[in-house]
């Protein structure tokens, strides 16, 4: 965990989603640091976290992550914070706010999706079969294991220079952990929790996002009473990388607004 930025500024906690680590925020952090006290951390099992603290029991539901966020905010002891959650972390933020509203001042949900699976009138963007396909792929280790993650975790005896470079690189995750995290991410359904959010909330969606399409952003906005909706002119699920300036501006405007 790192705390940087203005000591007298509001505290903003940035939480990364599935697939990467706190490096994902690197393009927006310099801008946010001008205004806020910025807290960065890696979820247990991701990035530079203590992997030995991970257990399938604790982290096979979002609740393990939610408890971590609550503990982190309590340990910070900096008063109520603004929690910025990307992707699955937006739902971790929602659940944390529902459990401990006193710890949170405001909530920013970046490309949130409360459920990835279509259900009746709700369009999550994917069918259960689609998600099964992803999980099957991950279960059989193709996507995570044989590709970028493997050289990092396994070392790369044939190309040590590559292993070295990747080891110091981004988005490290043990395939075993990635599999469980993917399951939690894509099979959680938190639609019913949205209406319980009691702090000012910004829903920041990406204009072109295959994972969290605009219908989903609109749904989240509708369900959270009094929430604001911003559509960032960006492509993909990570606007903090593809449109960092706009993303930072949206967060700053919301946190500074009354």
């Amino acid at each position: 965990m790192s705390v940087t930025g203005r000591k007298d500024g509001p505290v903003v906690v940035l939480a990364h989603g599935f697939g990467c680590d706190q490096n994902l925020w690197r393009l927006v952090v310099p801008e946010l640091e001008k205004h806020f006290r910025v807290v960065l951390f890696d979820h247990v099992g991701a990035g530079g976290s203590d992997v030995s603290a991970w257990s399938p029991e604790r982290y096979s539901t979002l609740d393990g992550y939610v408890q971590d966020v609550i503990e982190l905010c309590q340990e910070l002891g900096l008063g109520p914070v603004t929690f910025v959650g990307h992707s699955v972390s937006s739902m971790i933020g929602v659940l944390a706010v529902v459990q401990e509203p006193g710890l949170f001042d405001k909530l920013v949900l970046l490309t949130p999706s409360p459920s990835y699976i279509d259900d009746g009138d709700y369009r999550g963007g994917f069918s259960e079969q689609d998600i099964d396909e992803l999980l099957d792929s991950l279960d059989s280790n193709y996507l995570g294991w044989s590709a970028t993650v493997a050289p990092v975790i396994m070392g790369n005896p044939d190309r040590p220079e590559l292993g070295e470079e990747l080891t110091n690189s981004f988005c490290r995750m043990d395939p075993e952990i990635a599999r469980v995290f993917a399951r939690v991410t894509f099979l959680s359904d938190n639609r019913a929790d949205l209406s319980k959010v009691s702090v000012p909330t910004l829903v920041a969606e990406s204009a072109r996002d295959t994972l969290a399409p605009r219908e989903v952003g609109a749904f989240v906005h509708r369900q959270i009473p009094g929430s604001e909706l911003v559509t960032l002119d960006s492509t993909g699920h990570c606007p903090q990388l593809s449109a960092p300036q706009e993303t930072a501006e949206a967060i700053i405007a919301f946190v500074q607004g009354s």
Partner: protein
Amino acid sequence: MTVPPGGEEADESWAVGDRDQEQLPFTALLEDSVEDLYENAPCGYLSTLMDGRIAKVNRTLLQWLGYRREELVGHKQFSDLLTIGGKLYHETHFSPLLRMQGEVSGVALELKAADGSRLPALVTSTVKKDGDGEPLLIRTTILDAHDRRAYERELLRARQEADHERERLQRLATTLQRTLIPPALEPVPGLEVAARYHFASADEVGGDFYDLFPLAPGRWGFFMGDVRGKGANAAVVTSLARYTLRAAAVSDPVPAAVLANLNTALNREFQEDEPRFCTVIFGLLTSEGEETGFHVVLAGGGHPPAVLLRADGSADHVPTPGGQLLGVVPDAHFTTATLELRPGDTLLLYTDGLTEARTPGLGGRYGDEALLDFARSLAPVPASGAVAALTDLLGSFGEGLDDDTALLAMGVPREHRDGEETGAGPR
């Protein structure tokens, strides 16, 4: 003369060689245009804008996927060509990495052809920047990975099979182990009994064994032993030792005779094979009335000495010196000791996994003396308390505990009359 590398990097001096038959094919290589090289390269090429829209694609990839150029360029995004699983991976891993590193290489993704069939591919992308260093477009090469993927699948299946076999082996070992140590010990009126087995490995059957069983009214036999080695071979000896000890005790319960009986069986049974050894303590408990305690006769064959923890807080070894390892010589000698187990006394038997545990702090092995000191710090202690404390001690050894370890404690509960204590063990 060595053969030069591919056309565009060929050495000019090679072209002006004087041997026409070599010059002719090389001229053809020089005429291999850049355009043709791009379109018909042995890999797929794809260029997209930063938002993923396809701007350029080569003929090879179009052929692989069965699309016409105009169906892709300006209409589809790269991620539209991926399977759902691939799309999710692209959004959560590939794309963020590419943005942060400027390149991503050798990622396994599956592409979806126009007819719905799938093309396993290895995908490498780099970001091309403009003069100001701003990202301009993404260049992607796509290699057909059919064979590699099939090979990976084989590897994966082999690993799953190995995992499965390992689980099966562990189940088998656990089941076998359960047949070698009693799941629950026979209750003995007036005696509290506690036992513990620490398994050093889930894959192999351990070589330690113990039992406690009735022989006649008011009389019980018990033993603690350790077979040299582990695994299937040790299990054979353990099994033989267990039933021989029980059977021998029924016909002649004198402890030294019971051990002699087992020694004969081991020598006879394993004469031809490599010799099989074990160490055993065998004991006979005779009740002297529920409030008095037990008379105990012990015989030892090469086994670490039992420890008696007395009601008065003292603790000592119960030596059976000179007792020989079983299974080595036909006429082995065994030493007998007797003691009285009185209310508040606890008799502890164990295997050398405990005393041989590596303890860097104590310079080597835990040792008999350290165990005796530990016992003195515990006494007086009931059987369950002794086993619980020793279990914690075993836990504290961590990696230093590398052998199976069995513990068996038998104690006569103190009487519950007000403050009244009866005598302790032998003096």
